[in-house]
C-alpha cells in the first residue's frame, strides 16, 4: 500500500513537471488557473498544519503542541531559518511536557 502511494505520487509529480516542459511551445495556461494553483497548494498545506497543530484524532491536542507550533510560526514570521523553526517548536513542546503540561 505504502509503495503504491509513493509510486503514484512520484509518477504523477513527474508527469506534471514534464507536461509543462513539453507543452511550453504550444500552450499557455490561463492566467486565472496560473494564479489558483499556488493558492490551492498553500490552502492544503495550511489546513493540514492547522488540524495537526490543534487536534489529535478528533479531540483537542492539549497545550504543549499548539504552544510549540505558535513559537515556531512566530520565528518563521521573523524570518528565522527553517531548521530553527522546527527545533524551537519541538523544544517548546518537549519542555512544556517536561513541566507536566498535556
Amino acid at each position, binding site marked *: 500500500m505504502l509503495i503504491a502511494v509513493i509510486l503514484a505520487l512520484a509518477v*504523477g509529480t513527474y508527469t*506534471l513537471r514534464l507536461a509543462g*516542459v513539453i507543452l511550453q511551445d504550444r500552450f499557455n495556461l490561463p492566467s486565472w488557473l496560473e494564479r489558483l494553483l499556488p*493558492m490551492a*497548494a498553500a*490552502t492544503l498545506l495550511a489546513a493540514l498544519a492547522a488540524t495537526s*497543530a490543534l487536534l489529535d484524532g478528533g479531540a483537542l491536542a492539549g497545550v504543549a503542541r499548539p504552544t510549540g507550533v505558535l*513559537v515556531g510560526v512566530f520565528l518563521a514570521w521573523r524570518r528565522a531559518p527553517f531548521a530553527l523553526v522546527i527545533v524551537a517548536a*519541538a523544544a517548546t513542546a*518537549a519542555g512544556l511536557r517536561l513541566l507536566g503540561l498535556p
Partner: protein
Amino acid sequence: MLGVGASFGAIASAAGLPAWAPVAMSAIVFAGGAQFMAVGLIGAGNPVAAVLGGLLINSRHLPFGLALTGTFGDRRWHRLLGSHLMTDEAVAFSLAQPPGAARRRAFWSAGAAVFLCWNAGTVLGVLLGGAVGDPAALGLDAAFPAGLLALVLPSLRDRSTRAVVLLGAFVTVLATPFLPAGLPVLLALVGLVVLTLPAYRATIGPAPGRPAEACDPVPRDRPSETGEPPC
C-alpha cells in the same frame, strides 16, 4: 535545505513510516510540501487523500515548466532529467538569470544542489529520528505543523491567498472530528471556490480575462512562484 530534508526524515520516522519510505520519497517524488503532506495523511490512515493532496500541491510545477522555455538544453535527456530537478528554489534561482547560458547553468547547479542536500538531509533525519524513542517527548508532533506553516507563510503576504487559506483551515479544523481522515483537508479547497469565483466573475466585465487583484502590488520574495509577469 539539508535541515529541511532532515526534518522531513525525522518527522516521517516519528509518524511510524519504515526507514526506506521517506528515503524513496525524497529520491523519486522530490517535492517537499507534497512529501510532508503525504506523510501526515498516510499517518492519519488516508492514502487516497495523500496522493490527491500531494498531486494538487505539485500542480504548480506545470506553470513552472511552461516558464522555463529553453532552459534545460537541446537534448531529449536534458528535458527528461531537468524536469525531475524542478523545484521552487531551482525555478526561482534560474528565472532570476537572463535567458540563455547563464540561466541554463543556474538551473542545473541549483537543481543538483537542492537534490543532493534534500536527499542527504532525509537520510540524516531518518537516522536521527530512528535513534530516539518517543516522538512526543521530543515535541516532534509540534515540529510538523510548524514546518508546514513556515512553508506557507511567504504566500500569505498576498491578501486574497490569506483569506482563502484562513477560511480553508477553519473549515478543516471544524470538520475533522466528524469526517473520515484526509477528507477535511481536501474540504479546505471550498475556501478557494467560495472566495475566488465571485471575485473573478466580478472582474470579467471591467477587466476581461484577468482578475483585478492579480495586479495588486504585492511584495513577494519569490516572484517566480506564481509565474506572473509584472503588471
